C-alpha cells in the first residue's frame, strides 16, 4: 500500500497549473451596472424653452457638470424632468413613471432667491400623490437675483409615500445654481 500511495500523492499535486482558465471577462456579457448620467430640467413658458442639465458621463461623479438655470422674473414655467442612463441607453424617467407610486421628486429653492421661486408638482400617481416628473415653476416679479434649486428623488420602498416626507433612499440629489433676470 505504501508503494501505491507515494506516487498517488505526487500525481495529485501535478494537475494544477491548468486547473483554472483565463479570467478575461466578456465585454458584452459581464458587468452591467446601473448609472444615472443625465438629469435635465426642461422649462417652457410662452413658446420659449429653457433647459439645464447635470451631466456625468462616467456615472461616478468624475466629470460631473451642472448647468446654471437662467430664469426670467415674473414668469410661470411648465417643466418636465428627463433622467437618462446613457451608458446602458435607458430612459430612467420612464422607469420612474412605471413605479410612480414608489417615487417622488422634491424641488427645494435655496439661496437669496429662494422666496422668489415656487414649484408645484402637477402629475399624480395611482394614489393621487405627487410624482414630480411634471411641474410648474413660478418666478415672482422683481429684480435680478441668485439662488439654487435642489431636485431630489426619493424612493419609497417600504416607508409609505405620503406626498410630503422624503425617504432614506435618495436616488437623485442635484442642486442647480439659479440666476433670475
Amino acid at each position, binding site marked *: 500500500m505504501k508503494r501505491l500511495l507515494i506516487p498517488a500523492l505526487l500525481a495529485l499535486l501535478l494537475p494544477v497549473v491548468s486547473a483554472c482558465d483565463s479570467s478575461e471577462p466578456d465585454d458584452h456579457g459581464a458587468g452591467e451596472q446601473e448609472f444615472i448620467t443625465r438629469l435635465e430640467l426642461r422649462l417652457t413658458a410662452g413658446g420659449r424653452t429653457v433647459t439645464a442639465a447635470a451631466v456625468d458621463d462616467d456615472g461616478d461623479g468624475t466629470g460631473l457638470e451642472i448647468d446654471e438655470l437662467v430664469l426670467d422674473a415674473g414668469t410661470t414655467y411648465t417643466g418636465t424632468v428627463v433622467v437618462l442612463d446613457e451608458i446602458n441607453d435607458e430612459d430612467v424617467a420612464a422607469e420612474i413613471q412605471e413605479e410612480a407610486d414608489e417615487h417622488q421628486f422634491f424641488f427645494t429653492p435655496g439661496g437669496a432667491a429662494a422666496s422668489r421661486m415656487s414649484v408645484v408638482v402637477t402629475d399624480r400617481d395611482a394614489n393621487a400623490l405627487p410624482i414630480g416628473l411634471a411641474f410648474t415653476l413660478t418666478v415672482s416679479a422683481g429684480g435680478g437675483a441668485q439662488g439654487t434649486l435642489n431636485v431630489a428623488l426619493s424612493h419609497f420602498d417600504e416607508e409609505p409615500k405620503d406626498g410630503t416626507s422624503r425617504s432614506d433612499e435618495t436616488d437623485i*440629489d442635484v442642486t442647480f445654481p439659479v440666476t433670475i433676470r
Partner: protein
Amino acid sequence: MALRWVWRASLLAACFLSVTGARAQSVLGIVRARSGEPLEGVHVILPESHRGAVTGADGSYRIDGVPPGDHEIEFRHVGYAVLRTIVWVPDDGPAVLDVALETESVRLRDIVVTAEGHAGEMLVRASRSVSVISTADLAELQGRALGDILGRLPGVTTLSTGPSIAKPVIRGLHSQRVLVLQDGVGLEGQQWGGEHAPEIDPFAAGRIEVVRGAASVEYGAGAIGGVVRVDPPDLPESRPIGGTLSLRGFSNNRQGAASLMVEGGPRGLPGLGWRARVSGRRAGDSSTPDYVLGNTGFEEVDVNLAAGYHRGRNGMHVMASRFSTTLGLFKGAHIGNVDDLLRAIERGRPSVEYAFTWDIAPPKQDIVHDILLWRGHVALPGGDVLESSVGYQSNRRSEFDAHARGRDAEEPAFSLTLRSVSGDLKVRMRPRGSWIGVAGISWQDQSNRNGESGFLIPNYHAITGGAFALASRISGTWTHEFGVRLDRRWMEAWPRERLSIGPFVRRTHEWTSMSAHAGTIRKLGAHWSLAAQAALAWRPPGVNELYNFGVHHGTAQFEVGDPTLGVERGRSADLTLRHEDERWTGEVTAYVNRMSGFVHLVPEAEPRVTIRGSFPSFRYTNADVRLAGAEGSLRVLLGWGFVADLSASVVRGTDTATDDPLVLMPADRARFGLSRTWVGDRFDLEAGLTVQTVASQARFVAGADFANPPAGYRIVGLDLVSRFRALGRTLTGTLSADNLLNTPYRDYLSRYRYFVDDPGRTVSFGLLVPFGSAR
C-alpha cells in the same frame, strides 16, 4: 476513532527520547480523551509480546524494547471504548503514537468539575497565544452561530452586519487578515467584504482553535492577523452506526436549527470510518428591545460527508461539503446618499414599524460554498511521514439590491464565482535527537469571475506558491520553535479602463516575500510557564484594495482602490504567562504588532458628488500602524462546586505617522462568569451566569466618522446545561437566555450601529440526542 500524529503532542513526546540506533525501539505517546485532556491510568498493551505500560498524569506512556515492524497495540481504560490498532516501529528511532479514546457512553458520574487531568498540557501549548474550544464546550454551544461561539474567547470579537452576519476580529484585525480553516483547508470566499461571513456550519465543529497573531509560516500570507481552525471530530473506527440529532430553537428571531449526524466504522474493515451530516437553520426577523429589525431573517442548509481509512502509519481522508445560505440585510441600512445616512442617524431608530416575518426580501445575499478535499499520509522508510492534500473550493455569491431598476427582481445586483484549487506536500520528520520538524510546499490557483449583471471587483486569476520549514526542540524546561516561509503570488486582474466604465484591461501583479517565526516556552516549576514569540508576516494587497471603485451601500461611502498599493507587513512580538494548578488556570498575553504598509481606507478631502447625491470619498492607502494590547483569561475553582471565569481584552490601534487612533478597533471588554454543577443520580446540571462588559471606544478621531462610537454596555447571559438519562440514552439539554435583561445597546463593531440597536433578549432551548452506538 482515528489515530493522529499531533504535532504538538509529538513535541511533548520528544521529551522522552533516548539513544537511537539500538535494534529494539520504544513506543511512546500521549493518550487523551476525545475532548482533549490527557488520560491517566490507561493500560497500553502489546498483546503479542505481553509488554505494556500505564499512562502517567500527563497521559504519556512508553514501552521499551520493542522490535521494529508492525505490532498490534491496545488501549484500555475504564469508561472508554477499547482502542486497538497497529503501530509501526522504525528501526532507527522510537514510534510516537498519540491516540484519543472515546467514552463508551456519556456517563453521568463522569462530569465532575475539576481542573485536574490536563495538568501541564496547557502550559506548553504553544509559544503563541492560542485558545481552544473543546468538544465538550461545543456540545453546550450546539446550534449557536460561529460568530457567537468565537466572540466568547478573549482577544476575539466579531464584526457584525445584523443578526445574520458575523465575522471574527482577532486583536483588531479581520477579513483578509484572518484565515478561517475548515478541516485543515483555508476557506476561500470573498473574504475582503466586511459583510461576508465565513461559510462554515458550526454544528460540524468538533474543536475550534484560535491563534491570535500572525501564523503565516504554517498557513501562508492570509494569516497575518490570526487563524480560526474549525476541525471536525475524529472519525469513528470499528463501531456500529450511531449518531446525534441536535436541535435548538431561539425565541428572538424564532430561529430553528437542527443537525443530524450519522457515523460508523465497519467492524470488518478496521481503519475505515465515515460520517455524514446535514444541518439546517431558519430564522425570521430579529428584534431589539424596542423594535423589529426588518428583513434580518436567514436560512441555511449544509451537508458534509467525510470518510477516512488508515492502516498502520498510512492513511487517507476525503471530505465533501456544501454550505448554502440566503440571508436578508436590514432594509433601513440600505440608504441612498450621505444625507440619508445623517437623517437615519439623527432619527436613531427605523423609519418604519416592521412586523415580524419569516420572508427574506432584497436586499439579500445568496451564497453557496462547496469544498472537496483529499488528504493522505504515508510513512517513509526511516520513520518520517509524507503528507499531502488537495482541495477544490467554489464560492458563489449573489447579492440582490433592494430594488432592481429596469430588470428582473430575481436577477442579482452582482454575482461572483471564486474557484480555488490548492494543495500541499510536506514531510513530517520523525524526532531526531531533541529536534522535530516539518517542511513542505504549498500552492493555490484561484480565479474570480463576475456574473452577467453588476460589477464589484474585477475578474482575476492568481497563482500562489510557497515553501516552508518549521522545527522545534525540547530540552529540559525549554521548548524552542523556529519557522520560515517564502511565498510568491502572481495575479492578473481585469478592471475596467476607467474603473466604472470602459473596456476591460489586463493588469498583472507579482509579489514575493518571506515570513518567519521564532518562539520559546520556558516551564517555571510545575505550574507556571512563560512563552515568548516573534513573527514576521506579510500580505499582498487584495483585489478590492487595488481596484474597488464605487459606493458602499449602508455606509454611503465611495471607496476607491489604488492599483499601486504595496505589500503589507507585520512585525509582532508576544509574551504569554500561563499558570495551571488544581485551583486555578489562566494565561495573560501582551503583544505589539507593528505593521508597515497597512492597507486601510483614508478619507479624501473632497466628497464625491454625483447625480445621486454626494458621498464621502475614501481611498485605500498604505500606512504604518501599531497594534498593541493584552488579553487574558482565568478560571478559578471557588469551592462548593462553584467555578469563576474571567476574561478580558484590550487593543490599541494607532497610525504611527499621525498618532491618530485607527477606526473600528474593538473597545475594551471583559467577561465574567460564575457557574456551578450539581451531580445527581439520574442527571447533572450546570448553571452559569455571564456578565459581559464593553466600554465605549474612547479612541477615535472626532468628526472622522458620521457618528461617535456608541456608549458602553453590559449584558447578562444565563445558561443551564443538563445531561440526563431518558429513553435509554444520555441526552444533553440546554436552556439559555442571551441579553437576559433585554438591554438596548449598540456595539461599535456592528455595521448597523448608525441605524439600530443590537438584538434584544433571546431565549434558546437545545437538545442533543445520541442514537445507535453513540447512545
